């Protein structure tokens, strides 16, 4: 009978062979010394391995031993809850209530709730364009979370397929946006008679549109003149912007001097050092003006909302008027159909001929009052971002506990993440610039760059906050079960402190910067550590006999 190979021997000692084969081997072993020796050596090796592996050569870390009994300190929850309740109460009584009143005073009752609550704090209605970018960022974050969740359940190829198809889907979605026609050059003129059957993006020193744009016009230029017809919106960043033509959509313009002489079917948002609505101009919707000086001689069918240093009202306002500023003159030619309100340091001048539906409601603002108002607004924004960050943080903690802890650990190292974060943010700054440049060329590519950047910048506060909470309340008990609750409590406290700190004028900005640097570094290192390959084993080289 032949000897057995090592494999068979191993399977034999491990009891992995069927009865017949086992008996065969048993019989062979009885008469074969060399096989018996091999068998014994392998058995010794197994026993040696078992004892080496099970030997209690090191103590169980205290972190693991001590944690299980402790729950979250109840005061942490109490504090977090109380803070939240107080914030919510304040939010409703001081924030939303007067705000909604004020908004409806200003004739903003009709806009949708979301943009009213979140973005009317920023008077620039053009924020609604920015919302898209932020929503895309949020969607991407959710998508990343979803992919992570799927990946934990499905094996790799499927996850890859999901990611790929999601990316392709995103690319397809971005396609229409990037399909806009782009024109560059020192001077761009769309002559009268020419029709652009597309959205148009133009850059250059001077842009003149005498023809027709069947779509949105986006212009980055020094001088913009529109005498033609734009069927969509006009979005312009210019030193001087003059719109004499017809715009069927909205006009949103940021310019040193913005002049409107034509007909705008929808709303106008104008930010500039001087904003002129010439007497021939008509605005079909409402107008928002942020201006050092504004001459509003034209016709505004709906409401006017303005923050204006020096304002002259000579035209027609179909809805309410609300202006905050330094000086306001309502000329005799003016007509205001709705409620007229002015907030400023002195009484507005209302000339005798002016037709006001009701007397001008005036509020004389003191410096104190102004500060309080803006503090309320800043506070509301802080609460929003606090609650948002907390929700995202809890989501991260629930879906990726491992990654969360890895990043948190990196956060604790302070120095390294700071350096890495600074580096990343500087390159990131370039990325953003490139992204913006790419926005002109292709929105898809710009969004792709933002995709990486926005979520990271957003989540860094979560980790720094949790770290801070840990410092204040002691390391989170890493006990199973209670771990999530305890970390969540610390996250709530830490984030609250961060958000409160951010409200402090100068310090707040520094805190924000520090959090961004530090957190970004930690997130990047954490990601790196999670994905890094294991420390490679030195190549096993057989020793020559």
């Amino acid at each position, binding site marked *: 009978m032949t000897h057995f*190979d*090592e*494999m068979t021997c*191993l*399977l034999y000692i*491990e009891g*992995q062979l069927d009865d017949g084969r086992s008996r065969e081997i048993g019989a062979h072993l009885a008469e074969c010394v*060399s096989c018996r*020796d*091999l068998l*014994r*050596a*392998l058995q*010794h*090796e197994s026993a*040696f*391995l*078992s*004892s*080496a*592996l*099970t*030997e*209690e*050569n*090191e103590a*169980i*870390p205290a*972190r*693991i*031993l001590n944690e*299980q*009994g402790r*729950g979250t300190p109840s005061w942490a929850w109490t504090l977090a809850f109380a803070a939240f309740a107080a914030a919510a109460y304040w939010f409703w009584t001081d924030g939303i209530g007067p705000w909604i009143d004020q908004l409806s005073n200003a004739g903003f009752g009709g806009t949708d709730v979301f943009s009213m609550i979140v973005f009317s704090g920023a008077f620039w209605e053009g924020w609604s364009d920015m919302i898209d970018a932020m929503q895309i960022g949020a969607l991407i974050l959710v998508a990343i979370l979803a992919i992570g969740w799927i990946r934990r359940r499905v094996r790799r190829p499927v996850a890859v397929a999901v990611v790929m198809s999601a990316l392709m889907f995103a690319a397809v979605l971005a396609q229409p946006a990037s399909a806009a026609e782009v024109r560059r050059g020192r001077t761009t003129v769309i002559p009268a008679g020419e029709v652009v059957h597309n959205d148009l993006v133009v850059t250059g020193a001077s842009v003149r549109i005498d023809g027709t744009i069947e779509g949105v016009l986006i212009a980055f230029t020094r001088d913009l003149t529109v005498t033609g017809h734009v069927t969509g919106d006009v979005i312009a960043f210019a030193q001087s912007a003059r719109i004499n033509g017809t715009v069927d959509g909205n006009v949103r313009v940021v310019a040193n001097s913005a002049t409107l002489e034509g007909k705008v079917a929808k709303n106008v948002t104008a930010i500039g050092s001087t904003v002129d609505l010439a007497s021939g101009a008509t605005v079909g919707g409402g107008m928002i003006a942020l201006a050092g000086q504004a001459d509003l001689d034209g016709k505004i069918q709906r409401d006017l909302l303005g923050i204006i240093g020096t304002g002259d009202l000579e035209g027609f306002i179909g809805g309410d008027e609300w202006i905050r500023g330094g000086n306001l003159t309502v000329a005799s030619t003016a007509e205001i159909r709705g409620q007229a309100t002015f907030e400023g340091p002195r009484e507005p001048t209302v000339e005798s001929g002016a037709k006001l539906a009701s007397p001008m409601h005036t509020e004389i603002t003191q410096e104190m009052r102004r500060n309080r108002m803006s503090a309320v607004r800043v506070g509301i924004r802080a609460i929003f971002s606090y609650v948002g960050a907390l929700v995202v943080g809890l989501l991260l903690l629930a879906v990726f*506990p*491992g990654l969360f*802890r*890895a990043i948190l*650990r990196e956060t604790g190292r302070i120095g390294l993440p700071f350096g890495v974060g600074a580096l990343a943010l500087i390159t990131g700054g370039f990325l953003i610039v490139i992204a913006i440049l790419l926005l002109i060329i292709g929105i898809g590519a710009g969004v792709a760059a933002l995709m990486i950047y926005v979520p990271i910048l957003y989540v860094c506060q979560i980790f720094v906050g949790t770290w801070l909470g840990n410092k204040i309340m002691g390391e989170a008990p*890493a*006990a*199973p*079960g*209670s*771990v*999530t609750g305890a970390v969540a409590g610390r996250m709530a406290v830490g984030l609250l402190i961060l958000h409160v700190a951010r409200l402090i004028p100068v310090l707040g900005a520094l805190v924000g910067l520090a959090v961004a640097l530090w957190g970004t570094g930690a997130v990047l290192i954490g990601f790196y550590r*999670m*994905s*890094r*390959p*294991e420390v*490679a*084993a*030195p190549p*096993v*080289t*057989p*020793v*020559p*006999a």
Partner: protein
Amino acid sequence: MDARRHPEGMSPAEQAALQERIALAKTGNAEAWGELYRQHAPAIFRFCRRAMPTREDAEDATMDIFIKVRQKLSQYDATRPFSAWLYTVAANHCWDLLRRRKLRQDLETGEVENMPLEHPDPGQLERLIESRTSQQVRRALDQLPARARMALVLRYYSEMSYDEIAATLGVRRTFVGVVLLRARHQLREILEGQGGASLAAGGAT
């Protein structure tokens, strides 16, 4: 003997107490869960310590495993030994983590199947075992590719069956023996290297 690794190796009364505790923990009883944790966390930590490359990894993995265990407790089938189930959860978790770190240096199936293993000289093997300490073995273990190390840990620490190992590592059951044997060979080679002298080895005997 090994009450630490297999708390079921205990009296029927203790068994009953354990099952009762599990049942209580399933209902959300924090105290019962705490007891379960205290009883099993050290063994699971040691398991992770062997399976994962660093101590920090092992601590984190232990935490995460118990979070999973608590979530999945309702799925535990009381007819199976509790610790075996626990090890299954732990093994899957650790293997998942290791796999995710892209085991590039891992010599995958092809090599294991293709490279013939030298028949060892029993005398040399015995001498090698005698001349090495447990600590040296553990250190050598750390140098093994992840799958080889995992296989050894699953078999000789958790005492898993070949079926369980096959399921965890995602290999065919008939392949488990090959993985284990190959791992033992690699371990021997590393141990020989450590000792400096070539006691047995790749060469012909």
